[in-house]
């Protein structure tokens, strides 16, 4: 079980992820709808793991990831991406993301990935 911060600009995707993570006995400690909000909430909530959308207003997921990795080099961030954003994913992994999931996703696989990253 982990304390997770969900970052996505759409309420629908946040709600979906929240439901999936709840079903895997994880605690959702917060939600953020853009990169700036994510950094603030990361500092105040200190979650075990962050699920981070890439394309978001204000500050995108890659920029937010960079700042989170500066704050905590051991941060566990899993990127959520749409198909066709492999370049972004590669950059995210280089920047320090510990995993990624591709939208649309299926609950059991998401939980498997999240649990693997939490254990790592």
């Amino acid at each position, binding site marked *: 079980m982990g304390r997770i911060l969900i970052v996505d600009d759409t309420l*629908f995707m946040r*709600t*979906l992820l929240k*439901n*999936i993570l709840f079903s895997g006995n994880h605690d959702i400690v917060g939600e953020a709808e853009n990169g700036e909000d994510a950094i603030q909430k990361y500092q105040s909530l200190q979650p075990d793991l962050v699920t981070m959308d890439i394309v978001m207003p204000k500050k995108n997921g890659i920029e937010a990831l960079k700042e989170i990795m500066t704050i905590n080099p051991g941060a566990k961030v899993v990127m959520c991406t749409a*198909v*066709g954003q*492999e*370049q972004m994913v*590669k950059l995210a992994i280089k920047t320090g993301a510990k*995993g*990624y*999931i*591709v*939208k*649309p*996703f*299926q*609950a*059991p*696989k*998401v939980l*498997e*990935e999240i649990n693997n990253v939490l254990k790592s």
Partner: protein
Amino acid sequence: MKTIPVKFEAEGKWISAKIGIDETTIHLPEPINTQIPIKSIDNVQQKKNLLIISAAEKDYRIATVPKALAILKRVILMGCSGYRLMAFFMSPAIRGGVMVNDAEWEKGAVTVLKTGIWFVSQNHQICIPIADVSAIEQTKREIQGTDKEVVKIDHVESGDVSTSFVLCPSTTLQVLYNYLTDATKGSSLDGELDPLSGQVAMLVYSGMDTHSIEGMLEKSQREIDAVYDRMLGLGLVEVVQTRREVKLTTKGVRFVTEAVKPPTPQ
């Protein structure tokens, strides 16, 4: 000519025999005693250790051990009449939205037959049934530092939605894409889906049950039922379970009333 020990079906019976095979022909002995030119084979289906070969509008059922089956399939898939090209493939690359850890590009052939897309490499023979293909897309993917055009095939595999990629020279990639699009057009959506139905489809895809969907979208059971009806009409879903709503009869009310009564002191 190589010989392979098999069982094949003839006149409703399974016959144990050795069949002959070379690059051009399969020889089935008595009681069928026929030569099947490999070029005349236009479809291959596999069900566990059983191979169903279709040639000249006849089906031949051959069962054997996995190693022998692999030899048989390789010869057939490399010589049969289907759309075939040499390519690199990765199958599956993504399963349920998560990258498959040990996925790697394999060099081999892609053979498109009536009911399946076959990937054949030195070590693997993978079939994606056409009926299980949910999307075909031409897209870019970074390979060894450069963006390359690939064909992306989304398919359902043991209940999981998986993605496979095919990489080949750009001259043949468009042909492959067109061929696959045509072969799978039966599963394309005719018409558009309204936003609510789209959200419901996404939630079903993610594994949410009806109760969760109602809660997440703040919709009543009746509204979600109406969406399901639209999706059923479009052939996007099938009913796997019907949930029932009940109300207590007088007998039921009496049972509950009795059950909550404090125990009578003795």
